[in-house]
Structure formats: C-alpha cells, structure tokens
C-alpha cells in the first residue's frame, strides 16, 4: 500500500534520511524505533507529503491519516468544533466524530482546546487520526502524556482497527508497548534502517536488548 524507494533527505549539511527502502503491507503494525534525531519524524513527514525527499520515490495507494502531533488544532475553539473542522475536511459525518469521541473517552468536548492538559490534547490528536476509516494511520509517540487508562484505550483501539484491516506505523520509544502491538519492527539509526525484525522473529526478540546492541555499534 505504501512503497518507499531510496528515500534520502538532507537538512543543510545533515543527512536525516539515507536511502530508506520500505514496503508497507496491508493490515500490519510496524514499529519504528530509533534515538532522538534518527529520522523517524522526518520519515513520517515525508510519507505525509509535508517534506519532499531529495532523492527516491514514494508510491501511496491508500487513504492515509496521521496523529503525529498535537499541533494543528485551534486553542480558541472547543474540542468538538476542532474535530468538526477535520471531519469536514475528510468529508466525514457527525457520527464519525461521535465514534472517536467514545473511542478515546473524550468527555471534555465543550472545553476549548487551548485549556486542555497535554494528555487531553494528545487524545484529541489521536481521535482526529482515527476518524473515518483510513487504510493507514501514522502515529508518532502516541503514548506521550497519556495516563494509564488512555494507554489501554489506545492499545485496544489499535488492535480493534487492525482487525478491521487498518495498517499502522508507530514511532515510539516505549519498546514494551511496541512488543505487544507490532508485527514488524524497524530500527532507524542516523537516517538508515539498520535492522528489520519480521513478524516471525518478533515473538522471540527483546526489542530493548536489540536496541542497546545497535546503539553500541
């Protein structure tokens, strides 16, 4: 559904992505692992079309959605109105908004987005990403600022959507969470995918130990 071929990107003299190749298949959850500055967010932004690669090609043949940031919402607007704006943009109905409001237990719909705590904002950003029926959802540090209940809700939402056929790419530092959810794991170091752990190996691999091995190299 998404194919990245030899994607490279430089910001000034710094190479952020170096010949990244990736074939994203239908109905899988991919974990993207790497230290800060390794290129995870840039890779997601390239897939979103917000950053143009200097080299390489991207082929996208599906409907994408993204929850990569708490940005993009209006502080002086209520949560429900913010979601309405994006629902209109994605040509979705009010019932689609209701579904995600229930999914992420958003009981603060009438509060202005600007007055929310970081965790509440994160839930709104996730709700926006889950709205409608996207084929592929990109998530960047989705558990950031979330309380334990919300993490459980997010996990079950991802599993539920996967059953319905949605694919996920999750960039995260919470390796235990990724171990529970992912079908495949990719390690990104200095803009390069240095290791791929396929579904067949994932059950026998400790991601934390693998990460430590790679970071020592």
């Amino acid at each position, binding site marked *: 559904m998404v194919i990245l071929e030899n994607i490279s990107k430089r910001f000034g003299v710094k190479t952020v992505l170096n010949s990244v190749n990736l074939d994203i298949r239908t109905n899988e959850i991919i974990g993207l692992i790497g230290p800060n500055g390794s290129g995870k967010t840039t890779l997601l932004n390239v897939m979103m079309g917000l*950053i143009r690669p200097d080299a390489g090609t991207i082929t996208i043949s599906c409907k994408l959605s993204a929850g990569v940031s708490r940005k993009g919402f209006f502080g002086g607007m209520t949560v429900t109105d913010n979601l309405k704006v994006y629902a209109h943009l994605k040509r979705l109905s009010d019932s689609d908004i209701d579904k995600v409001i229930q999914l992420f237990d958003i009981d603060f719909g009438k509060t202005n987005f600007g007055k929310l705590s970081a965790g509440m904002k994160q839930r709104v950003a996730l709700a926006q990403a889950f709205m409608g029926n996207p084929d592929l959802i990109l998530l960047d540090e989705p558990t950031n600022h979330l309380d334990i209940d919300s993490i459980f809700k997010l996990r079950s939402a991802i599993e539920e959507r996967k059953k319905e056929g949605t694919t996920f790419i999750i960039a995260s530092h919470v390796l235990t969470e990724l171990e529970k959810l992912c079908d495949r794991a990719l390690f990104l170091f200095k803009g390069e995918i240095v290791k791929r752990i396929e579904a067949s190996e994932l059950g026998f691999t400790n991601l934390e130990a693998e990460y430590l091995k790679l970071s020592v190299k």
Partner: protein
Amino acid sequence: MNYLRFEWLKLKSRRWAWLLAATTALALASVIKLLSNISYLNEQVTEGQFMEQAAYGFISYSCLYPFLPLWIILFIGTEFVNGHVNLVVFNTSYKTYFYSKLVYCFLISTAFCLLGIVTMVVVQVTAPFNVLLPKSFYGIFIFQSFFTFLSIALLAMSITFLARNIAISFVVYFILVFAEGMVFMIVKKLNGMELFYLPFHITNILYVKGGEKMSENYYNFFQEPDLRALALPVFLLITQGLTYWDFTKRELKPLSD
C-alpha cells in the same frame, strides 16, 4: 470540498472572533460617524460632499492595520503557526488550502462591505441635515468597497503566505505601506511622476484618483473611469499566482511535538 462552509466553520467556532467582529464593527462605525459629523460641523465638508466623505473614510479606514489586514494576517498567520496548514495539506492538497483562503478573503471582504453599507445608512439617517443621495450611491459604494477590500485582503494574504508568521507579516505589511507612501511622495515631488503601479496604490484605484489616498481624490469610478484600473486584476492574478507557486515550492515545517 465546500470551501465556504469550511472557512465559515472555523471562523464562527473561534469564540474570540466574535469579540473581534463586534469591536471592529463598533469601532469602524463610530469612528466614521464621529468624523463625518465633526468634519461637517467644522465646515470642512459641504452637505453635497458629506456622504462621499463618509464613504471615502470607511473604505480608507477599513484598509488600515487594525481592521481588514488584521483579520487576514491574524487568522491565516495562526493557521501557519499552529500547524493547521500542514494537516489540511496532508488531508487534501496545497490547492485546497490555497483556494479555501481565497474564499476566506472573499468572506471577509463581503463582511466589511456589509458593515460599510450599515455604517453608511447610520451616517445618512443620523446626519445633522436631511441627506439627499443619488440612487446610484449605494451601488457604487458596494462596488468600490468590495473590490478594494478584496484587493487589500489578497495582498495581505500574499504577505502572510510568504512570511508564514504573524509578527513578520504585520511588520512587512507596515513597512510596505510606509515605504511605498514615502517613495510615491518623494518621486512625485522630485520628478512630478506618479508611481501609480505600486501595490497599495494600484489596489486603491477603484475609489481614489491615481490610488493616492486623499479625501479630495475620492471619485465615482463609473463617472470618470480610470482605465489604469484594468491593471488591478492583472496585478492580483500575478501576485496570487506567485504566492501559490511559492506556497507549493517551499516545504512546510515538519509536524512534530
């Protein structure tokens, strides 16, 4: 995609927008009403010029910083700063976002035009004497004010798209208006030449002679059409074309926390 509904949805949902709208309406209407009466009482304008002076004042004041440009720069600038542009472009396209902003400029220009009509009616009804107006007055006023507001709005929009930052856009707008006024005046004094084709002069051509903002220059475009006004749509097409080109060529900031 219904651009009008999309922009209206955003506009009406921002609570502070209603406060700003009320302030804008009240401030503009009262300033025009007050100035018209003062000018008349001080015998600076005759009864015949009274409404023309008010019309000139309304269009001219609306184009000042705290009014029309504020609505354009503040609202579009906020969307660049808070990452809304990124999400719109990601979910739809650069074209969709750009078109929706053209619609927003249309929406704001219409609102200012409607406010202008209300203000003119108030000024007329509460005038210190019985005002007799030609039938065409309001028709001409709507034409002049709407297209002037739209031109200024599009110019402010271009500046905001280029700067992608509220504060920088305001500074650039201020410097441009100031610098253009200075250049126009200096060249006119030294050479007697009128640099009519400067951005802010060309956008004023529909209501002031030669685009030079002076109350005595207010004129009826249909009685004495200035053919140089034909350059205005060409100028706007070029600036919007260049703005769109720059918007699609320059990368947006990566979305991340």
